[in-house]
C-alpha cells in the first residue's frame, strides 16, 4: 500500500491543499509544506508552474507567472524537496502540465520523484490513453500514483475506465470550470456528487475546483473522501503569507 492509499484509509475527511511552488517567494516551498503538515493538512499538491496553464483560472495563472519570474524551475523544485521526507510525512503530489515533465524526461522525472519521496503526479493534460500506452510502466516502476480527473460531463463508462486505471484516488472536478474559488455548490453539483458516490468506485474520490471555505468543504466531502483547496489558499498566501496558514486551515474544519 502506498502512502496515499494508507492516508485515505483513515476514517476522516481528507483535507488537501494545492499551492504553486515558488510563490509568493522562491524559497517558500519547504516552509509552506512544513506549516501545512503542522496545522493538520492531510495531503499536499505541489504545483509545478507552467507558462500556459490552460485549465487554471486567474489566481493560479498569476501565481504561476510570478513563480516563474521568481526563478522556479523543475530542477530547482527538486533541489528544494531534497530531504523533505526527514521533515514531513504526509503524502505529496506534484501537479503540473505535461510539457515541463516531457522536457525533463518522463523517466528521469519519475525517478527523481521516487528518490525524493513524492508519492504521485497529477498531469491534467496527459490523457488516459497516452498514459497507458507510453508511461504507465515508468510510473509503476518508480511506485508513483497517477491521478486522473473526472468532471460532471464524464460518462459513466469512462469513469469506470479511469477507476480501473487508477491506484490512488480520483480527482473529481466539481463543475465545468477552470480552477478558482466560487461561492458554494448548487443542485447540479450535489446531484453529481451523489451520482458518483452511488457508483461504488474502487478508488476514493477527492473533490477539487471551487472549494474555498468550511461550508463548501463540508458539502464537497459529504459523499467524497476529501477535498482539495487551491485558489483560495493562494489568495490567502498573497495577502497574509505563510503566517496566515494556521488560521486558514483552522477555519476549514
Amino acid at each position: 500500500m502506498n502512502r496515499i492509499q494508507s492516508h485515505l484509509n483513515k476514517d476522516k475527511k481528507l483535507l488537501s491543499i494545492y499551492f504553486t511552488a515558488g510563490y509568493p517567494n522562491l524559497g517558500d516551498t519547504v516552509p509552506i509544506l512544513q506549516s501545512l503538515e503542522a496545522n493538520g493538512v492531510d495531503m499536499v499538491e505541489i504545483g509545478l508552474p507552467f507558462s500556459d496553464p490552460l485549465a487554471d483560472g486567474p489566481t493560479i495563472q498569476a501565481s504561476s507567472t510570478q513563480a516563474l519570474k521568481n526563478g522556479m524551475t523543475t530542477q530547482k523544485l527538486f533541489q528544494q524537496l531534497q530531504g523533505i521526507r526527514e521533515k514531513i510525512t504526509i503524502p505529496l503530489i506534484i501537479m503540473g502540465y505535461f510539457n515541463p515533465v516531457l522536457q525533463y524526461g518522463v523517466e528521469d522525472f519519475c525517478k527523481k520523484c521516487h528518490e525524493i519521496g513524492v508519492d504521485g503526479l497529477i498531469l491534467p493534460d496527459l490523457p488516459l490513453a497516452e498514459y497507458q500506452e507510453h508511461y504507465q510502466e515508468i510510473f509503476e516502476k518508480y511506485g508513483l500514483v497517477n491521478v486522473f480527473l473526472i468532471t460532471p460531463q464524464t460518462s459513466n463508462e469512462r469513469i469506470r475506465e479511469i477507476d480501473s486505471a487508477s491506484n490512488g484516488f480520483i480527482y473529481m472536478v466539481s463543475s465545468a470550470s477552470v480552477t478558482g474559488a466560487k461561492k458554494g455548490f448548487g443542485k447540479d453539483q450535489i446531484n453529481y456528487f451523489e451520482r458518483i458516490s452511488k457508483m461504488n468506485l474502487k478508488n476514493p474520490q477527492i473533490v477539487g475546483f471551487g472549494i474555498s471555505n468550511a461550508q463548501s468543504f463540508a458539502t464537497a466531502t459529504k459523499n467524497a473522501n476529501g477535498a482539495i483547496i487551491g485558489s483560495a489558499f493562494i489568495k490567502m498566501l498573497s495577502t497574509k503569507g505563510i503566517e496566515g496558514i494556521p488560521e486558514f486551515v483552522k477555519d476549514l474544519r
Partner: protein
Amino acid sequence: MDNKAHPLNSFNVNEKGYYGDFGGAYIPEMLYPNVEELRQNYLSVMQEEAFQKEFQQLLNEYVGRPTPLYFAKRLSEKHNTKIYLKREDLCHTGAHKVNNTIGQILMAKRLGKDRIIAETGAGQHGVATATVCALMGLECIVYMGEIDIKRQAPNVARMKMLGATVVPASSGSKTLKDATNEAIRDWINNPTNTHYIIGSVVGPHPYPDMVARFQSVISKEIKNQLQVKENREAPDYVVACVGGGSNAAGAYYHYLDNPKVGIIAVEAAGKGVNSGESAATSALGKMGIIHGSKTLLMQTHDGQITEPYSISAGLDYPGVGPMHAHLYASGRAQFIAITDEAAMQAGLELCKLEGIIPAIETSHALAVFETKKFKKDDVVVINLSGRGDKDLNTYIDYFNF
C-alpha cells in the same frame, strides 16, 4: 474539402490522430467530451451529401471560389522561372481563413451548438469567424490578446460591426497564444452548447485534420487549374508561409503523397533566426506540447513556452501544426526562414511588378526567390494567402510612404 480516408503511410493523419510522432490530443479531461464528440463525428458529418452541398455552395457564392490561379508574368521574368499565384487574397474577408470558418460553422450547426468561440492574433481569423456567425445567426465570442487589440484596431472594429463580442486576453504575454488559452478556458467553462472554431491546423486531434480538409479546397483547385494551363496537375514546387500552417496545409494537401512535388514551407525569421526575436519554429523549436498537440515548439530548456517575434502577426506563433512538424522531421518539406526585411521587400516587389498588395504573412512566401533558385521551366505555385489591406500601417511605417 476532402472527405476520403487517408491512404496508409501517408503524410496525413493516422487513425490515432498522429502525423508521424506529432499530433495527438493532450487535453485535460474537462475538454474530453467536446473533443471526443467532434472526433467521432467530423468525418461522417463531412461525408453527408447535404453538408457537402451547403459547403460547396457557400464557397462558390459567398466566398467567391474558385479563386484564380494567376500566371505572374512579370514576377516570373524577374526570377527566371514560371510562377503561379493562387489568389486566396480574393476570398471574401481577404484571406484563406474563411474556407475553414465556413466548414466549421456548418459542423457546429450539425453538432447542435449555438455558441461559437474563437481565438485570433492579427484579427483575420476573428473576422472570418465573426462573418460566418453573422451569416448563420450564431453568438460569437472572439478572444484576442490585449496587445493585439491595440495593434489591430480596424479588425477589432470589423468584428464588432459583425456582431461579435471581442474579449481581451490579459494573461501571460497578452498575444495569440494567450488568446488561445483563454478560448480553451471558455470551452472548459461552457462544455455543452459551444463549438470552438480553431483558426489553424493546430490544437488537439481532430482539429489539425479537420482544418486541413476544409482548406484542402486550395490544392484541389490548383490541380484542376494547372491541368488547364499547363496540361499537368502537379507543379514542381508549392510554396506557402507557415505560422500555425493552415494555408500551407491546404496548398500542400493534394500533393503530400506525390514525391515529384517539392513542398516548401516559409517561416518567419523575424530579425534573424538566432537574433532572439524570431518565429522560425522548425529551426528553434523542440518537440513539446502546446494547445493540446505534440509538435515542434519554441520553449525554454525547462519546457516553458517562449514568446515568438515576427513583423507579421499571423506568423507570430510559438508552435506549428503537427502536420508541418512531421513534414519537417521526415524531410518531406524544405523549410526556409525569411527575415522581416526580406519579406517586406518581397511584398513591395509584388506590388510593383504585379499590382497586388499581399499580406505580410504571404510576403514571406514570396521572398522564397531570395534564397532558392528555380529552373527556368519549373512551375512554382505560391499560395497568396491574404491581401495586404490589414497591413497598410505596417507597410507605411516600414517604408515611410
